[in-house]
């Protein structure tokens, strides 16, 4: 009760502080040489208020205060404490409050961290960021107030969707938001820098930390989402090209492109306009993701409650921001049409242009694939689906040259360089392809394509390994990130080729036998847990090399009444053994799905390596120069 009231009013006060900050910023913009300390002070105050508001919501959730509508809709007294807390941001209202919290946190950190930068630039960044913050305050208070009061007070809440009651998913949204919101700082900062004509090397090295930070969080956020999908959705996939996944991938692609471009700006004054456009696009794509997910305009496995009014608000806000940024870009940006310093073919710049070229293509495939059905329906009211086959067909062929360029690119130096050891590079490529051919030839898949594809991934792998041993390697972070990426592509490819799957129906006591494999359904135990009934199966699985006992589980949750299937996975370095059971209507047997998925662990490890590369680069700036 009380916490809802406090939470609501600190939110209202917080929104007024935005106006105060803008007022002081405008005043400060021309008057003095140094940044008014009031701006910093009020930013901190705003952060505290939003934090208090967020804390109040958590308290309401912990106390199961059902006079609060958000708590009533998303919680239940029998839910474990951990999920009561994480349930705070597992819903629309709470997640927006979290988003707002991160927005205010980031602008405060920005102010603290940017002391060496131009004053006017800092103030403008604050103003742009406050415009975004005001937008979110209005959105929150107007359409999705987390502190709505319910009367009469319900005795029991509606509960949280059980598939969301999961540790990976509990931290997935905050991490993803750190990535999304980080892109808002890049956006504001790029606009501010455009206005005061501050797009230069200095700005590039300063904004690079923000690009890296949000890039790392976005990468980790996507990883967590994938891991969750892998073990929770119960069919052993980790990426479905589902719209909700695509909208997190798009800002990631834009951010990765931006990251590479910033490197060029740091060294040479090139691609200024392009960098501004990319900064705007990254944030626009993040917002677009929020719009597509929250408005319910797309349907997907990940269901969210949706409300057209909310969608409409985000849509207007998104287009307002885009219009403002285009306006600023056109009015203030002076393209340096003077003589461009030429880019030579064999240079690091070229390799980064190629990177941008391919990344933009990948981005356009994902973007078009995701929104095309909306366009088609609006224009001709025909409904189609765009699924994995579309993305595979358009992305995979382009991955081959991309991987090869990715291997050679870092070997080139700035401005003008030569490619040493051309012969050995070509030889290695041929060896890689032949090597891959030996691996895939026993499978009746398309081995010509597969061996070229896996060959190019191996090529990147070998080259990056080789780079680790080259003396005076100055770009350790880049090397480890590219190495991680080669490992990622390799694991995904090998995983998709070598995965085996058995789907069968078994009763307790029955066995499934095929060649060397025997799956025995030994036992089924029933157990009453706090908020669900658990049926745990015991399976003895015997194959050529190993004996495993696996215990997949079916959970019947009481609130809301939903059955979930919990996979049991035996994870080893080389492969995962994955089993799920499902009940079938009117039958006393269970549908058993047993999968052997090689290199699964390496998919996760390689993504961690990729983000580790970013982390090293973030903390090791001097070393990199």
């Amino acid at each position, binding site marked *: 009760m009380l916490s809802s009231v406090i939470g609501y009013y600190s939110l209202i006060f917080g929104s007024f502080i935005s106006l105060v900050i803008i007022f002081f910023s405008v005043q400060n913009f021309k008057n003095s040489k140094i940044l008014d300390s009031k701006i910093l002070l009020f930013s901190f105050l705003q952060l505290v208020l939003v934090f208090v508001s967020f804390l109040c919501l958590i308290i309401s959730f912990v106390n199961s205060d059902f006079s609060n509508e958000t708590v009533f809709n998303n919680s239940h007294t029998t839910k474990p404490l951990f999920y009561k807390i994480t349930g705070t941001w597992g819903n629309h209202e709470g997640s927006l409050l979290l988003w707002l919290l991160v927005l205010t946190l980031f602008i405060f950190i920005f102010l603290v961290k940017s002391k060496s930068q131009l004053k006017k630039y800092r103030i403008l960044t604050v103003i742009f960021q406050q415009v975004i913050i005001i937008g979110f305050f209005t959105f929150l208070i107007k359409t999705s107030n987390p502190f709505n009061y319910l009367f009469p007070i319900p005795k029991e809440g509606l509960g949280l969707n059980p598939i969301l009651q999961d540790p990976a998913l509990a931290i997935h949204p905050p991490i993803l938001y750190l990535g999304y919101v980080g892109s808002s700082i890049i956006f504001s900062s790029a606009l501010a820098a455009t206005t005061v004509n501050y797009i230069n090397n200095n700005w590039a090295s300063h904004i690079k930390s923000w690009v890296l930070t949000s890039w790392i969080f976005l990468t980790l956020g996507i990883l967590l989402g994938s891991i969750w999908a892998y073990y929770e959705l119960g069919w052993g996939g980790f990426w479905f090209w589902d719209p909700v996944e695509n909208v997190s991938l798009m800002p990631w692609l834009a951010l990765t492109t931006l990251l590479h471009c910033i490197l060029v700006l740091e060294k040479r004054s090139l691609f200024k306009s392009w960098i501004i456009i990319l900064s705007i696009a990254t944030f626009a794509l993040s917002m677009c993701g929020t719009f597509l997910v929250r408005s319910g*305009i797309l349907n997907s496995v990940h269901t969210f409650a949706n409300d*057209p009014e909310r*969608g409409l608000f985000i*849509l207007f806000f998104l287009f307002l921001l885009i219009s403002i940024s*285009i306006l600023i870009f056109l009015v203030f940006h002076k393209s340096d049409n003077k003589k461009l310093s030429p880019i030579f073919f064999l240079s690091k710049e070229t390799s980064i242009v190629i990177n941008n070229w391919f990344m933009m293509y990948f981005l356009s495939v994902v973007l078009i694939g995701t929104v095309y059905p909306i366009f088609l*329906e609006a224009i001709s009211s025909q409904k189609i689906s765009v699924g994995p086959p579309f993305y595979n067909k358009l992305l995979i062929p382009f991955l081959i040259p991309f991987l090869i360029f990715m291997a050679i690119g870092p070997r080139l130096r700035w401005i003008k360089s030569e490619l040493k050891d051309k012969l050995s590079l070509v030889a290695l490529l041929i060896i890689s392809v032949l090597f891959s051919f030996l691996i895939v030839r026993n499978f009746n898949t398309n081995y010509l394509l597969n061996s070229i594809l896996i060959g190019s991934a191996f090529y990147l792998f070998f080259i990056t390994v080789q780079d680790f041993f080259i003396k005076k390697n100055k770009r350790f972070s880049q090397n480890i990130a590219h190495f991680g990426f080669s490992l990622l592509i390799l694991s995904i490819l090998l995983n998709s080729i070598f995965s085996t799957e058995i789907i069968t129906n078994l009763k307790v006591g029955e066995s499934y036998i095929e060649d060397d494999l025997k799956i025995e359904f030994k036992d089924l135990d029933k157990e009453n847990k706090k908020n669900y009934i658990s049926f745990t199966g015991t399976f003895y699985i015997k194959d050529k090399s190993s004996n495993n006992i696996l215990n997949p589980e079916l959970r019947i949750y009481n609130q809301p009444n939903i059955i979930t299937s919990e996979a049991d996975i035996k994870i080893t370095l080389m492969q995962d053994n994955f089993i799920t059971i499902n009940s079938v209507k*009117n039958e006393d047997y269970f549908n058993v799905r047993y999968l052997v998925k090689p290199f699964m662990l390496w998919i996760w490890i390689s993504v961690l390596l990729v983000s580790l590369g970013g982390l090293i680069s973030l903390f090791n700036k001097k070393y990199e120069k």
Partner: protein
Amino acid sequence: MKNKIIITIVIFFFTFVFLIFYQGLNNSNIYKPSNSENKIIPKFSAYTFFENKLVKSENIFNQKKFYLLNIWASWCLPCRDEHPFIMSLKENEKLEIIGLNYKDKQKNAKSFINNYGNPYSKILLDKDGTKAIEWGAYGVPETFLIFENQIIKKYIGPLNSESISEIKSFIK
């Protein structure tokens, strides 16, 4: 000059995208197959519920009158809701009601019929749900109004008083 063209294009592009998204907000995001009308009914053969005889669809829908094919199951709650409406059509002489019992246990289906009444002149069995797919159905209940081997109207979900009066106006 060149700049102005670019600006115009950009503005047009974003306005277009905005309008499309705006339009998209109003569309439902749950897909339902279109109520494809005037399609020829599929050919199939199925066992009958009571006599357990194999019959061909050509021998069922062969007369010059209206048929109503209703896909139902005893475990499906909306079927219970719509059942009285189907019962109300039973006495209509121009209409023959055929039931397609979807993925059901014979025992449960029988007690359903005993409790709520039997409006069907024939009940066909669809134990594995494959016949429903031949009809283009994807759940229960679904109902098809048929005349001269053509599907005139398709109802996804339970029938209600509105759809009943519509059916009545068709067969007048």
